[in-house]
């Protein structure tokens, strides 16, 4: 076990199961944080603006749905990641292949979590401005929706890369 400094030795002694589990937690937890943040930013403006202009409520729920989609991505990836988490025999737990698999799942979780966090924020802020502009001038809604669509693509990028990352996480076979 190489590792010149005590930090790198300490890091390598952490079980790959830990890394993988934390990755799964981050993927769902941080995605939901992003979705919730985005929903409250949009929702509070939408409620206030809908008092004077009740017609905007049904159309502007799309912004909330885009934010919610971000949380769903997080759930899907978390489910996929947890199917990738396998047990390996005790002798193999610190083998290079196991570490690689653990790190891959961890990275996949971080990718998805943080991509969804910022996507949720982006869509939320735009959704708030969209609700306020729609209340004043209803022709603006569709144009601002295009901006939101571009924003929500960011979450998709994160999901794609995360899934690719985790698909090559292969633990050493049981019969070593």
């Amino acid at each position: 076990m190489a590792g010149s400094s005590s930090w790198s030795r300490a890091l390598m002694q952490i079980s790959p199961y830990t890394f993988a589990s934390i990755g799964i937690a981050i993927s769902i937890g941080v995605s939901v944080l992003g979705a919730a943040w985005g929903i409250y930013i949009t929702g509070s403006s939408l409620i206030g603006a809908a008092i004077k202009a009740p017609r905007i409520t049904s159309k502007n729920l799309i912004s909330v749905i885009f934010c919610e989609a971000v949380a769903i991505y997080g759930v899907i990836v978390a489910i996929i990641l947890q199917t990738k988490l396998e047990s390996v025999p005790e002798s193999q737990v610190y083998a290079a292949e196991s570490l690689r698999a653990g790190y891959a799942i961890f990275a996949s979780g971080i990718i998805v979590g943080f991509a969804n966090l910022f996507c949720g924020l982006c869509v939320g802020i735009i959704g708030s401005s969209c609700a306020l502009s729609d209340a004043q001038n209803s022709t603006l809604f569709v144009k601002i929706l295009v901006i939101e669509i571009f924003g929500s693509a960011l979450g998709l990028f994160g999901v794609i890369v995360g899934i690719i990352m985790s698909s090559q996480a292969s633990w050493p076979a049981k019969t070593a």
Partner: protein
Amino acid sequence: MYGFEALTFNIHGGYLEAIVRGHRSGLLTAADYNNLCQCETLDDIKMHLSATEYGPYLQNEPSPLHTTTIVEKCTLKLVDEYKHMLCQATEPLSTFLEYITYGHMIDNVVLIVTGTLHERDVQELLEKCHPLGMFDSIATLAVAQNMRELYRLVLVDTPLAPYFSECITSEDLDDMNIEIMRNTLYKAYLEDFYKFCQKLGGATAEIMSDLLAFEADRRAINITINSIGTELTRDDRRKLYSNFGLLYPYGHEELAACEDIDQVRAVMEKYPPYQTIFVRLSYGESQMLDKAFYEEEVKRLCLAFEQQFHYAVFFAYMRLREQEIRNLMWISECVAQNQKSRIHDSVVFTF
């Protein structure tokens, strides 16, 4: 950190900001003003206003209508909206909203003290006070004989107390001293409000600084013009100018030395935003100065709505409503006195 307010503003301020923007969409437009300017009688005005948001407030008024009734009911609408927002607001927005009304409180205090000096009845004066500036012990103002009593009896319990430190004297209240008191209070209020906005930081600080600086400069120019030819000395005049704004400090030095309007104009030529205002007036004319200032103010207030996630929209909305009420008062007076040719002298269109 400036630039990231979008992340947390909506927690406490999102709902109210959306509400105030909804109110803004109910401000009268140029088309409404054109309709109103073509009215022949006050009943026509009432009919046109009932199609706008003022409808519910005016519909129960019996004819014959007076101009003061129209203005009173429209002000009532503003007060209702303000109170609704104030009770929904949390800190620091609630403090901000309260700051907006201190100017009216100062005006009410001066109104009652001046009225008492001229032996008017307290009840009559209370009815003339602006509703946004009322506070509990306002009727007791009539009892005070000089400024020290004024402070000790009444004002120490109001939010205006900290503004009095500069102008407590034992002199008796007379017209001149009351005007100086009004301007000193207003100066302290503007500086306090400015410091508060700077403390809030972010977009609120930036936009409010611009709006308050314009207010401070406008007051400095008006004080200068109104005190030309009076017994106010240069040093006294200098003390009434606020210590922020575009004109601070060099413009104030020059303004303090001005003796007539053309000198004021010469001083203002050096400051591009005010030069554009003064250029519209021909030499020797100062009646249109008020309207030019109002137009400039309305332009800046409308710009405050361009940005989201800050508090200056509340201030801008209150000021725009007050301008609208001033417009309605002017239009009603012109119609009531049959002077419709002068209507466009003083109506400032918002959009």
